[in-house]
């Protein structure tokens, strides 16, 4: 499914609302941290990374992405600096800080536990 197709049926998208209530709280931050783990990225690159990595299941809108990114900045998990994108445009690149790396590891463990817990509940008879 292409981006264009996806945009024709927005109800299929996740995370296009301001508060991605269809994600567990904090999950979006975790995913962003993860995608920054492989190197600094600008906002659009993060969205694309998440889309591709989720096999086209996650489409994050800007209005959800940017508040999440600001939360990372506020907590000191990422730093932002202006750079030039591949298409020769000015873009802001986000880079993980050491505190961000620690946060990623911790959050990930927490998330795994949570998923397992949910799984147990769903599997219970």
């Amino acid at each position, binding site marked *: 499914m*292409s981006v264009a197709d996806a945009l024709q049926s927005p109800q299929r998208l996740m995370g296009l609302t*301001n508060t991605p209530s269809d994600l567990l709280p904090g999950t979006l931050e975790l995913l962003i941290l993860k995608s920054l783990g492989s190197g600094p990225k600008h906002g*659009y690159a993060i969205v694309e990374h998440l889309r591709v990595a989720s096999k086209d299941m996650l489409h994050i809108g800007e209005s959800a992405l940017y508040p999440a990114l600001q939360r990372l900045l*506020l907590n000191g998990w990422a730093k932002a600096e202006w750079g030039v994108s591949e298409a020769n445009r000015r873009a802001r690149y986000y880079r993980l800080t050491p505190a961000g790396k620690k946060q990623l590891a911790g959050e990930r463990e927490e998330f795994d536990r949570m998923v397992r817990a949910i799984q147990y509940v769903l599997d219970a008879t």
Partner: protein
Amino acid sequence: MGTWFRRLAYLFRQSRHERELREEIEAHRALRAAHLERDGLTPQQAEEASQRAIGNVLLAREDVRDIWLGLFPMWWQDVRYGVRTLRKNALFTAVAVVTLALGIGVNTGIFTVLNGVLFRDVPAPAAHELVSIGQAVEGGQFMATAGTDTFTVSEYHAYRERARTLSGVLAHSDPRETTLGGDAPQEVFGAIVSCNYFTVLQQAPSLGRALIEQDCTPGAPPVVVLGHGIWTTTFAADPGIVGRDIELDRRRFTVIGVAADGTYGGAPMRVAYFAPLSAEPLLWPGESRFRDEKYRWLHLIGRRGDGNGLEQVRAELGVIAAQIDRQQSPRETRLTIERATRATIPSAARGAATGAAAVLMAAFGLVLLIACANVANLLLARGTGRSQEIAIRLSLGASRARVVRQLLTESLLISIAGGLLGSVLALWSFQTLVALALPAAVPPEIPAVAFDLDFSPDARVLAFALLLTLGTSLLFGLMPALQVSRPDLNRVIKQEAAGSGASRRSARLRGTLVGVQVALSMVLMISTGLLLRGLYATYTIDPGFAYRNVAFLSFGTDFGPATVVNQRLMDQVAALPGVEAVAFAAQTPLGESMMGGGVRLPGETEEQQRFAEFDQVTPGYFSLLDIPILRGRTFTDAESANAQRQEGGTRPVIISEAAARTFFGDSDPIGRTLLQASRQGGGGDTAFEIVGVAADAQLTSLGTVVPYIYEPGRPGGVLLVRSRGSFAAIASGIRALVRASDPSVAFRVLPLEGNVAWWRGVSGMVTTLGAGLGVLALVLASVGIYGVVSFAVSRRYREVGIRMALGATALDALRTILRQSLRPVAIGAVIGIIVASGVSRILSSVLFGVSPADPLGLGGAALLVFAVALAAGVMAARPVTRADLTATLRYD
């Protein structure tokens, strides 16, 4: 922490931050559009699709702002709203701010002074590392100067050598009065210090070298480091001073250096010299404290090394003390180790000093409480006026917490403004006051003292002012806020008049506050009244001896070897024109020093001995000072000539009336005997045979009568001279005589009246301070009472109008109003009198000539408070009674 810092950084560059965010989102959209075009959409479609995908950007931006600001905007809104409200009510705000400024100001001011005296660090680099070491020892025979807390030379060496938690331990004596010889001999204060003094303090001399260990070996050539002050004055900042000799108590010392300006002198005063420990036998001939294992005279200060905490130091030194105890058993040492302050209060006096400071702060605290009650009352009154606004806010969905927060924010704004204004006023005025008061606190006989006290504000003062500001805002703000935010919505919105439940509640609260205020100010004013009566007594009291037209000649510390003080000088002075009488005494009346001791009756044990003051006088003393001999006789010339200060034996004495009463009751003391134990310990008793009884005279402190024992004395000490002529004439005659017989002796000729004036001045200062507080309390309380009474009256305009319409006269209406508004005043006054009578009992034990149940003071204060309340009520009620009826009836 980092989060807060980033939030703060955001605040300062909020607009730039938001611009960048807009730009970033736009860049994002452009990238997406480009992507979509690559996927085959037309530019038009790509534009639309990307715009759609972006979602609600405006909301996102709001979200971002909320993320960064947290709860801040709400609070900021409160502040802006508060400022607006306060500015709209400029008069209310001004009264509240000035009231608090006075309350907070006097407290911050007095704390600045206490801080300068009690808490300030030793003026030295890294002063937080310095610890003072004091000891209390039980068991063993010891002589001590400066009360307890001091150490012998060998104890000092034990701590210095064994302590590992301290990088260095220094020792210093109390400031010592010394005669500095030269063309014009003068009395100065100096310190005897260990030779690592400058190293441990980390204050290198500004000229020459510091003391080194060789200077402290016994028999080392005598050297001194000069103080910076004396070097710039007496020695005119002579750069060639190093290597020259100076004379201290007629001993030659070589100057090896000049201490840096502001070097600590072991006490809160600047010292003229620092001499090594080994010089002590030269400066105290006769006693050798330096070698004596039993003489405690050194104060110890250590510097903590390697980041050792106070606890580690205490633990280690405690072990050393235990070692010393074992070596010298039986003995038990208790160490006091604290962060060093520049004014070291002996541990024995610490309790009393803390108590005095607490009483002082309590008096000032009362003023602040009155101020708070005032402002709380104002807020309550205004809150009632604002109940409609608050009711509307509550009914529009604001939570009570939100309204309380809003009201507290306003209180905080008021107290911050008051605190700022008050602190600025306080710091400025109290520093000026202290600068004026300090020199006046030094007795005239003591050589000019340069105090080394710092009353500038430091972190502790700022913290105190801040704490006071925040505390007061809660104190005066919380209760009114809770009260006001609990209105009965229905009634308020229907504009129901006073008399409903809520407003009755708040009226009761206001009444209580007025009562409290009246009680507090009664306490302060009654205390003030007592202080003023005490002051009056000080100025009018007869000290029991004649002090007018009496001059006294006192000598520097080195008069011992001088040949001046003898019978010949007495005869020469007596021959001066205008001189009526001359006499020698060991103590100057109301002078700086006194000598007391325990005395007992034969057959009593040493535990039963009672305290008496001692003096040694020549026969003419009593007639010169006009102290009548009530029974028996004065000394004979032969007794005076044979007088000696050795212990043991029998000698004739004259005792004061108070002493006669203390030891013999109503029976005749003439011919009876008193015993004094040896002062050195071990020697035999000295027997005093009573030959006369003299009238009581207040010779040691003005206003107190203590048992006195006069022994016959030979020429020595102070020469008292009564004359007919002017003081200036007689003084110049005496000066010429002394210079002629020995030009190298340091001496002073002063009027005895100056000593009396000094005593009066000191108690005058205390009283003025107290009276100032009392007047401030009265002013604040009057403002408060007036405000509350007039508010209560104005709330009842309509009721009064109705009563008058129904035929009540203006006088009737006035009477009703006053009766109700004065009730809390009366209750408060009664409580105040009860509390004040307790306080005055304490005060009267300090003051003299004032009995605790002083009806004039109590009644006067009560009357004053009532008059103020009455005046306030009448003034507030006047417009009501004069008001035109229809206007009153329409009044809302």
